[in-house]
């Protein structure tokens, strides 16, 4: 019987040869998906009657060639990077918070509620209070997941995902009934904030606001916490070897609580920034799906804070490119979406194959746990690179 085996690639990085081989594979993993997706993208443009090079230029280069495009890139990448930073904590701890979208929405609600009802508008503390409101609301929403997971052993994937829909309906209810703008002809929106409650715009005639800069301390803090603190160590150990974590005295419940609260807080902050920096009011569709996209960003960035920033920029570029290609080449919205999906898919796929190799072999007796059958669920986790026994604890 022919068996497909997926095994981790191993490189002896102590020798020059091994290190070179490693670099070569990494280089290929960076270049090949780019070429593959450029080729596929070209085909998509061609099938829509657009010269491929013209289309690719409109998608990748034109959006970055003016001030508006560059600032839009940052505006779109910022919430993705913020949410993804939070997701690093949970994902590294093997806690699957799929509900960042809901926590983002709650952050927007928290900031709006603070702005409308809690702060006097002339206070110098009002802006920080809005962000605090957003962080607390987002963390609280994730706290529900933590409580269900840690104390009732409810699957966190399901309950975090389902709380997204609850959050969306809560948002609809708030803007349709109690928080509706009294002067707004009964349209489902809150009143616009006073301009003193909005973040300043950094570049004239663009949307680039001060909140985008929050990403810098957020990434630094994430890196410090994950790599230079006991909390970060506990997360890594709990994620890779839950039993070892228990022996080391790290409480599993505590880790679930802490990581989910941090993750919800980051998503909540992103939601607050979106409201305070951009819309200046709560509207029924406050998120274009940032919470879900950030999951892709987290993995695309190799679960590393700096990788997340690069991934957020790349994903933001695909959004902008899709929009720009619509304007300049009339590429249909759906075709832009297909291209975006193919691009992300090929990057993730080649990233996976740079860490694993596929072998076709005849069935032979091997000790269990040494290799994985192709049907196994493999977490796309870079840490699998270094371990001989890839884990399958999904």
């Amino acid at each position, binding site marked *: 019987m022919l068996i497909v085996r997926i095994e981790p690639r191993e490189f002896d990085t102590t020798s020059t040869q091994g290190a070179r081989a490693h670099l070569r594979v990494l280089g290929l993993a960076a270049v090949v998906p780019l070429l593959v997706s*450029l080729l596929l993208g070209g085909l998509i443009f061609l099938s829509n009657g657009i010269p491929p090079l013209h289309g690719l230029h409109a998608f990748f280069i*034109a959006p970055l060639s003016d001030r*508006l495009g560059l600032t839009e890139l940052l505006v779109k990448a910022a919430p993705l990077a913020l949410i993804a930073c939070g997701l690093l904590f949970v994902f590294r701890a093997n806690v699957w918070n799929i509900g960042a979208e809901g926590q983002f929405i709650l952050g927007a609600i928290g900031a709006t509620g603070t702005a409308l009802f809690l702060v006097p508008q002339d206070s110098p503390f009002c802006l920080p209070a809005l962000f605090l409101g957003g962080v607390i609301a987002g963390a609280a929403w994730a706290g529900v997941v933590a409580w269900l997971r840690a104390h009732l052993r409810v699957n966190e994937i399901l309950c975090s995902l389902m709380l997204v829909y609850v959050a969306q309906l809560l948002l609809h209810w708030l803007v349709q009934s109690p928080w509706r703008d009294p002067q707004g002809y*009964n349209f489902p929106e809150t009143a616009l904030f006073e301009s003193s409650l909005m973040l300043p715009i950094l570049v004239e005639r663009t949307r680039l606001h001060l909140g985008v800069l929050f990403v810098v301390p957020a990434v630094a803090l994430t890196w410090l916490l994950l790599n230079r603190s006991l909390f970060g160590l506990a997360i890594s150990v709990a994620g890779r070897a839950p039993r070892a974590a228990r022996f080391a005295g790290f409480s599993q419940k505590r880790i679930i609580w802490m990581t989910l609260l941090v993750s919800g807080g980051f998503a909540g902050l992103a939601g607050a920034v979106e409201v305070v920096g*951009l819309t200046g009011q709560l509207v029924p569709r406050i998120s274009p799906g940032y919470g879900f996209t950030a999951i892709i960003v987290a993995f695309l960035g190799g679960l590393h804070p700096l990788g997340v920033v690069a991934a957020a920029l790349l994903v933001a570029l695909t959004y902008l490119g899709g929009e720009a290609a619509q304007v300049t080449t009339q590429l249909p919205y759906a075709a832009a979406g297909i291209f975006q999906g193919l691009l992300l898919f090929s990057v993730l796929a080649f990233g996976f194959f740079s860490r694993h190799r596929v072998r076709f072999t005849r069935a032979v007796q091997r000790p269990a746990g040494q290799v994985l059958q192709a049907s196994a669920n493999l977490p796309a986790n870079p840490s699998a690179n270094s371990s001989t026994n890839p884990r399958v604890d999904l």
Partner: protein
Amino acid sequence: MTAVQKSFHFLRSGLWAFSATCLLAASFLVAMALVGTADAQEKTKVGFVYVGPIGDHGWTHAHDVGRRALEEEFGSGVETTFLESVPEGADAEGAIRRLANEGHDVIFTTSFGYMNPTLKVAREFPDIRFEHATGYKRSDNVSTYSIRFYEGRYIQGVIAGHMTQSNAIGYVAAFPIPEVMRGINAFLLGARSVNPEVTLHLVWVNTWFDPGKERDAAQSLIDRGADIIAQHTDSAAPLQVASENGVFAFGQASDMRAFAPRAQLSASVNSWGPYYVARVQAAKDGSWESQDTWGGLKSGMLTMAEYANMPDEVKAAARTAEQGIRDGSVAIWKGPLVDTDGTEHLAAGLELSDQALLGMAWALEGVQGAP
């Protein structure tokens, strides 16, 4: 070196050469594009922001028909672009800004949720004329325009009142905003004008365009006994579900008869083209001014699709209502109007003002599932 290694080596250097070529080609393209923009011709650039895909065959499709009417009218004197499926959140501003930044002269933003973003961008681009559909805020360079969709709903109600056997009519509704509430109430008023027993059953889908949700909503209404389906969402899905279940329905915003030839009784068809042509003409000759336009059957912004799949006397009743609205002999909003809580919003003998219509947030008694 083995042959295999050699060929690998060759392949690798080939790859690098290929990527280098790609880079060169890309930079060449940038240069071409920069040169290309320098000699752009003097023509009116008109941009559109759409909330759905142009293939929704409903709301956005109707706007796109209007856009193409511009191209037919002005030929090479106009250049149109559009962005479809732009969500009504924070990113709407980015989309509008992109069009503004790319030197459009007139920008039409065609969904309610674009109101505040449109005004925000308009403040920073005083030389660009903005036109926002279905909103209520204007400024020096922002006009608003809309259609009295409720007139068509009233006629649909008249038809439904005649055609229903179960006296239960299903209504797939998007968001409880005044525009949708007006449609619901006008529909019920039309139906009750010929059949006082009618009740209207709502399902809210909280989206303008989601064929899956719209389909489920229509099916659940039919399962609960509705024998006519009306919709205030943009896809043809509710109409198709009605057709599959052998009940009647109405198209939305465009004539959707092709999707359900035996189920569509009629459709309110939004005709934006003449308005778009008039406004772009005004921008061209310098007579453009900020204004509010709310046209209906009379001004031709709203038309009814062919009355079909109904007996001749129902067709006649529909035509009478249509004519009556056009010449003013049929008043839709006359009192008494009592809402689901029993509050009287209009006393007998009076007519509702446009101001009251614009802020309508209540549903008439007889509507089930009001927000």
